[in-house]
Structure formats: structure tokens, C-alpha cells
């Protein structure tokens, strides 16, 4: 059986890109996939049109890791930056590789 894991999606202003990658890595994500996106939200705040648009970071993680990342995000970035995050259940092919021992 392919195990069920969480896919976490984070959409944030471009300026946070490296910080967010470091954060999810630190909390135990084994990898991530990143796309350049545009968007509008309730804040509409963006540092600079020149920093490029938003980034969308997706990472397949265990439920515990997801919770930890959620907590870190809420703590550090949610207030002052334009960030949203959500998770959904995914069934992953060879899911074991996505969970660190």
C-alpha cells in the first residue's frame, strides 16, 4: 500500500523564499517543489514588484512534521508577511522516502 501523507502548500511573497525552504528542511521535510506564481489576498502586500511575484512551495511530509511547520509559520511569518499555508491528504508512491527516521 502507498501510505497517506500530508501535502503542505505554502504561498508567500518572494522575499521569504530561502527562509521558508530552510524552515521546512529544518522541521524534517525531505524535499520540496517550488513554483513561481502570482496572487492577491486580503493583504495585497508585496515587498516589491521587482522581487518577482509570489512563490508556492509544496512539500510532502508526515502529519507531525506538517503540524510543526504550521506552528513555526504562525509564530514567525503569519503576522508580518503575506503568507498562506494549507495541507491536504495525499497517497504517495513509495511514501517511505518522504519520512525521515
Amino acid at each position, binding site marked *: 500500500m502507498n501510505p497517506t501523507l500530508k501535502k503542505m502548500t505554502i504561498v508567500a511573497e518572494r522575499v521569504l523564499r530561502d527562509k521558508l525552504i530552510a524552515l521546512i528542511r529544518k522541521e524534517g521535510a525531505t524535499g520540496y517543489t517550488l513554483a513561481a506564481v502570482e496572487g492577491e489576498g486580503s493583504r495585497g*502586500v508585496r515587498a516589491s514588484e521587482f*522581487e518577482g511575484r509570489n512563490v508556492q512551495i509544496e512539500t510532502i511530509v508526515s502529519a507531525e512534521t506538517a503540524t510543526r511547520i504550521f506552528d513555526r509559520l504562525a509564530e514567525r511569518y503569519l503576522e*508580518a508577511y503575506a503568507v498562506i499555508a494549507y495541507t491536504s491528504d495525499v497517497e504517495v508512491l513509495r511514501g517511505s522516502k518522504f519520512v525521515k527516521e
Partner: protein
Amino acid sequence: MEIIYANLVSPIVLCFALGMVATWIRSDLEVPPAIYQALSLYLLLAIGLKGGAAVSQSSIAELAGPVLVTLLLGLLTPLSAFFLMRRVGRLGVTDAAAVAAHYGSVSAVTFLAALEASRAAGLAAEGYLSALVAVLEVPGIFVGLVLARRKAAPASKAAAGSLGEAVHEVLTGRSILLLVGGLVIGTVCGAEKVEQVAPFFIAPFKGVLCLFLLELGIVAARRMRDLRQAGWRLLALGCVLPVLHGILGVAGGLIAGMEPGGAAVLGAMVGSASYIAAPAAVRIALPEASPGIYLTLSLGVTFPFNLTVGIPLFLAASRWLSNFL
């Protein structure tokens, strides 16, 4: 009057206007982000190369005065901007400091437009001016961030990103890296070798600038939508600050022994507000500061102001002041 007209009716300024019109009539015109990035990469590297080639032909004695004056102005202007934004603009400490970081730094495109205008007006400008752009870019941002630190409450300090991160952000940011990198390459290679890449970096430069200004026009027009929220006090400051700083820059340049054309360009640089390097650093270091204020002022007010009114003004001022200084 004539000088204003000559300045306005140029492909550069009109491309900026075209970008603004496109936004106003809700056209789907856009410069793809990848192209925008490539254009700014090109412009910054080219400015650096050209400046470097000029520096390689200048003596240190010649450069010392202008560099010193530029540095001083880079440390002074954020303070005056901060003061006026607090008192007249009635901004909080953080927002005022964020604005100060922008007005302390420099807009490369304003520099280029001033260079063109001075050439069109028949005034010579020193080749090493591009090097001064690099000198002027960083200190103002730094002063702005320190202002925020010194005056902010302890709680807010914890929330903000670290100052060190912001400094790293500025110094390793692509903007400074390309400008300084180009300068070093140009200086090391010398004018003759830079000549070899002139058909790419020098000859088409002004045309590339037109495309860049098209995009800047689009972005500036979007920012102007936020003008109403800014209030008339901020708007007025967005026009007063460039004049104040610009005249200081002109005077400083003349005192440092620059040609009238060069001093006018330096005035435009000092009078300009950054919208590439500064916003990125400020967003990291002062996330509570509102981009709706600092970007709207620098890109939506001061940039178009300088492009249309400021530059001819500095040219006239420089001509006039050069009789005395």
C-alpha cells in the same frame, strides 16, 4: 520651460507614459517577469562596465572628492527624510525609517535619465558617475534600518528580522552585485577591452532602457492607485524631498569640483529614491513597515516627479549655481 519640454519628449519618458496609459486603460500589456529581470540585469551590468571603464581612466585624486561628497550625502539624506516623514508626514518610527532607507539610496534609472537629459542639454557629465551610483546605493539603506532599531520599542525589535540579515540582503542583492561586479570588470579590463562588448552593452543601451521604462510605467501606475490612501502630506513630501536632496546633491557636486552636467546628474541621484535594493532589504528587516507607503512614495510619486520635473530643475539649478560655486 524649453528644457522641461525637451526632457519630456524623449523615447524614454514617453515609453514610461505608454506603460502608465496601458495600466489606465486596463490593457493586457505586460513585460514578462523573466524579461524584466533580464533587462535590469543588463542595465546594471552595463552601467557598471561603463563606469569601470571611466574609472580606469581617472586618477584617484579626481575621484576622491566626488566619492566623499556622495558618501556624506548618502548618510545625510536618510536623516532628513526620516525627520520630515516623522514631523511633517506624521508617520510612525518604523514607516518613517523605511521611507528614509529608500530616499537615502538611489534609483539607477533616474540616474540614467538624468545622464541622457544632461547630454541632450549639451552639458558634459563625468564618466565615473556610474561608480557613484554604487557608492550611493548602500549607506542610506543602512542608516534607515539603524534609525528604526534605535527608536523602536523592544517588542517590535524581536519581531523584526535581524539587521544582519538585511545587510547581507543588500550587499549580496543582485542589484549591488551587478553594479559593483560590472565596475570591477570595467576597471580591470580598461576602456579598450570594454569597447569589444560595446555593441551589446553600450550602443543599444538607450533602447533597452525604453523597454525597462515601459514596465516601470506599468508598475508605477499600479502604485498610483494607492495614492489616495497616502494623503496629501505624504504626496507633497514625495515632491519636496527630491527637490531638497537634489539641490544638496547639485551643490555638493559643484563643490567637489564636478562639471555642471555631472553635478546635475549627481543631484538627480541624491534626489531619487531606490525601488529595487531598498524595498527588498526593508521588507526583510522591517516587515511591519507598510510597502503601501514606501513603494508608493518612491515609485508612484518621486520617480515620475524626477523624470518630468526634477531632472530639468537640477540641470537649471546646476547651471545657475555653477556661477557661484
